[in-house]
């Protein structure tokens, strides 16, 4: 039987993502130990990819426990193996997978916590760019401030949830030994930013959420402030901008005028 490489590789894939050596066994040298031999590769493939997910989702793992996480991650690996050899980009679909899994139904906040974790991972690996600071905005003629368009920094991510995801994330950090009771009825939106190579997560109010969403959608500073005030009459633009400049939420694109 001529051995066609593509056929062998597709049988190998089925064997490592499945549970037996199936059609691959017929291509191998006869040996009483074939199942154990194929299992070495199955183990390497599955364990290494589960570990990639565990590294990206430490809080989700802590919430469900190591054993359940390993099972869940292994099912995800089988259902959606990486498409490219770039493991820092693998696992973005895990939150959606959790949402449809039994555990995601039992713990309805879990998928949103996973989205927060993935946003943090993306922020860590995102492109470098200078952050916009207050001096740059202050240098604009006052009449241009309204029509200025700001741009989110490549590392900035906005994650909205009907659950207190920031609080859940915080109390499940390694240094917190005993997780306190949390009121799950609080909705939180989180802005994730990266400054000086440090990724930070901060819960923001509804007005700020509307403000950042408008900016992300290409609105001017004036339009974004209007959106915020419509949601929250007490929205304080100066205060919000100060926090965002400190966090590095916006990109300073020196080549491009702000207006």
């Amino acid at each position: 039987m001529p051995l066609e490489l593509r056929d062998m590789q597709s049988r190998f894939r089925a064997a490592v993502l499945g549970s037996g050596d199936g059609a691959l066994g017929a291509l191998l040298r006869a040996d009483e130990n074939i199942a154990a031999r194929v299992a070495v590769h199955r183990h390497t493939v599955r364990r290494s990819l589960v570990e990639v997910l565990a590294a990206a989702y430490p809080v989700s793992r802590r919430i469900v426990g190591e054993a359940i996480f390993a099972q869940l991650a292994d099912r995800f690996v089988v259902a959606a193996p990486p498409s490219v050899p770039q493991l820092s980009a693998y696992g973005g679909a895990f939150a959606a997978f959790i949402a449809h899994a039994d555990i995601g139904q039992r713990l309805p906040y879990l998928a949103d916590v996973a989205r927060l974790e993935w946003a943090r991972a993306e922020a860590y690996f995102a492109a470098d760019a200078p952050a916009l600071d207050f001096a740059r905005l202050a240098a604009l003629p006052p009449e241009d401030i309204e029509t200025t368009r700001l741009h989110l920094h490549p590392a900035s991510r906005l994650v909205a949830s009907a659950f207190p995801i920031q609080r859940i994330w915080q109390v499940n950090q390694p240094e917190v030994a005993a997780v306190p009771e949390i009121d799950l009825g609080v909705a939180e939106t989180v802005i994730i930013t990266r400054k000086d190579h440090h990724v930070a997560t901060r819960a923001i109010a509804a007005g700020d959420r509307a403000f950042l969403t408008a900016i992300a959608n290409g609105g001017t500073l004036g339009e974004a402030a209007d959106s915020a005030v419509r949601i929250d009459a007490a929205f304080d633009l100066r205060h919000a901008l100060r926090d965002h400049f400190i966090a590095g939420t916006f990109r300073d694109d020196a080549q491009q005028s702000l207006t």
Partner: protein
Amino acid sequence: MEIPQAAGIGLRTAHLAAFAAEDSPTAPWLEIHSETFLCDGGPRLAMLDAVVAQYPLSCHGVGLSLGSADGLDPAHLARLKKLFARVQPGLISEHLAWSSTGGAYLNDLLPLPYTERVLDIVAANVAAAQDSFGRRILVENPSAYIAFADETMGEAKFLTRLVERTGCGILLDINNVYVSAANTGGDAAAYLRALPTMAISEIHLAGHSVANGMLIDTHDARVSYAVWALYADTIARIGARPTLIEWDRDVPEISVLLGEAHAAQIILDQRAGGRPHAA
């Protein structure tokens, strides 16, 4: 920067900050897994820049899948080229293995049957990679757990002919030679003698473990005595080569890695001044 004929260590993310620091440890050279650094920006690349400023660096790939029947992924080649332009590696290497098929990347170095048809495919992929990078690559012998039924040549012969066909070099992993021989019934010393001496441009040393009656290339332990003996014999026979200690799981303190590298350096120093014998 050129990689010296000395013993370096594999740089893993756990030690990245230490080697990026101003008071970083002394090591003759370092090797990274290229795929670990295929991100757009952030601290990991910034630390890599600081490492590159202090050490000669080699880029060792684990994802190009030189044995893929589907050919090489142009997008992955482009990402690697961008990384190489950034770090200017002294050596670039990959594996005699495959990891991608039908759009899935399986994150393991999977085995190939050594036949004429497979040689054609791997040679075309190696040539395509070298054309894309504009330079020679080294190809590493994998560790074997299974053997295919209808092979027509051994791995050493396959690698020798790959070198002849493409002009690539060999990254000789002596632990893999030992592990493969134990698992598939080969003779490690005969394998080492069968390779074209001048093509061997780098040597890897690592630890393995034992499970289910097999040796597993786990890279989670010290180099075994048997592998040290094969290494010493090889260096005595072919001369000094850049040598690397690999340790990827349960990564120990840097001092343990440097200790292993020091042991290799002693073997290299004993051979210093001698010329390699003709192949």
